[in-house]
């Protein structure tokens, strides 16, 4: 069974039909590169997968869990969407690091806030448990105090885990020595690597990159591409929207060429890059390889 199934996604902004029915599947461990000229709908597709845009029609499935179904209203309540987003990670073109937090804190904070939500839920469960027990008042308070201690112990343990994990991720993107730097003290390439570590920290099923090197100076793109390449493994599934043709060719298992809101061509890198069938693909490749 494919890890990701996308069926008939369409999206229209006012009179502009940006996506005209996108279908594809992705297996676990695969890297998908999406190429195409500006305005072809690549970024919109990625934003739909991350629920930053709501598709007008279509279906998004991870494993056999339906994350989005345009026919089913219950799939897009705010709280549902928030949790379903966690199946996907997104690395933005312009990083979007949080400027008031250090590199390490940028990676920690989403995890910490998820922990906060989790503990809030635990607190409710604890309260329900106490109430359901119908304890005499003295034991009720003993129970309350014990539960509270339990929660704060749990929180402390988890915070240590979060910090360890975040430091490991920083190391993995080659920035162990920059943990306490603020984003403005880092180069664009370093910022993007922190952003990658931040996205990885939540263990998304599918990690998406939206033109991760387009905002970088040419000499900094290499370090970021190298990190992305290094993430490739049998467990990590990635979708990369990119203008770096050489990179797409080297890293991708599957390439989609998009034009005017449809998938014009899909195949292995060899098929799409070396033996493109569609005239549009041929023209695009001829232009971008110049």
């Amino acid at each position, binding site marked *: 069974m494919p890890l990701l199934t996308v069926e008939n996604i369409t999206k229209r902004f006012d009179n502009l039909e940006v996506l005209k029915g996108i279908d594809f599947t992705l297996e676990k461990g695969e890297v998908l590169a999406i190429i195409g000229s500006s305005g072809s709908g690549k970024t919109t597709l990625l934003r739909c997968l991350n629920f930053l845009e709501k598709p007008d029609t279509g279906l998004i499935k991870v494993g056999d869990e339906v994350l989005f179904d345009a026919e089913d209203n219950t799939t897009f309540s705010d709280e549902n969407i*928030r949790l379903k987003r966690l199946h*996907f990670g997104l690395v933005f073109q312009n990083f979007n690091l949080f400027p*008031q937090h250090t590199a390490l804190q940028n990676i920690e904070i989403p995890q910490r*806030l998820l922990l906060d939500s989790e503990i809030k839920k635990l607190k409710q469960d604890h309260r329900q448990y106490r109430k359901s027990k119908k304890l005499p008042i003295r034991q009720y308070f003993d129970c309350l105090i014990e539960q509270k201690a339990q929660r704060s112990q749990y929180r402390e343990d988890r915070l240590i885990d979060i910090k360890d994990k975040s430091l490991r991720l920083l190391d993995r993107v080659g920035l162990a020595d920059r943990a306490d730097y603020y984003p403005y003290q880092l180069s664009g390439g370093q910022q993007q690597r922190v952003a990658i570590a931040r996205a990885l920290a939540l263990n998304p099923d599918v990690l998406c990159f939206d033109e991760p090197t387009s905002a970088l100076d040419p000499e900094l793109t290499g370090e970021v591409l190298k990190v992305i390449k290094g993430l490739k493994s049998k467990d990590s599934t990635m979708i990369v929207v990119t203008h770096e043709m050489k990179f797409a060719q080297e890293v991708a298992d599957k390439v989609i060429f998009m034009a005017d809101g449809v998938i014009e061509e899909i195949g292995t890198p060899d098929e799409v890059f070396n033996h493109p069938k569609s005239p549009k693909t041929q023209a695009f490749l001829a232009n971008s390889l110049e």
Partner: protein
Amino acid sequence: MNILLELLQGFGLTLLLFAITLVMAIPLGLLIAFCSMSKFKVLSVLSRGFVWIIRGTPLLLQILAISFVPSFVFGIPNKAIYVGLGITLSTLNFIFVAIAFFINYACYFSEIFRGGIESISKGQYEAGQVLGMTKRQIFFNIVLLQVVKRIMPPMSNEIITLVKDTSLARTLAVAELYFVAAEAVNIHVSLMPLVYAGLFYLLFNGLLTILFGKIEKKLSYFRS
């Protein structure tokens, strides 16, 4: 020496009005800012219309208007209010003035807050969203501090203006610093009380300027 003591008393009232206005206007301003940015058209139009009226008319006029509301709108004479509440006329007048001030300043603040909030890039919200944060978490953990940093300069401007605007409270004979100084000029047949009053305002604003400088410096550890 007596003059200074009197002025100091007036300054106390000035400070009280200043503090009440600040404490009430900041939360109300935030509320108005959110209403102005609301997706519900009716709410945002009403809110922006209100801000337009308050910013478009003199504070002096608003102070008078507020003091006329009970008698003209509800037909309750002001005397009935202060006798009924067991307070003095001057306390009632102070309350009128305070209400006019914090409504007026809330509207100015709301526009500063709105500008600050809207200046934060959409990317910050989107980054928070894709990282599984709730709207609340995004606002309080990501956006708020960046907004505070950005609005510090216009806020300090507005707050310093507020210090001087408190002298408008004399419209309802509230015995704040300027009112006391003007009285003293008549009594003592000397312009010195006004000079002293000027120095009071100057010194207090000097303190505030130092304070704002400290806050801005504290927030200079990051750039956005």
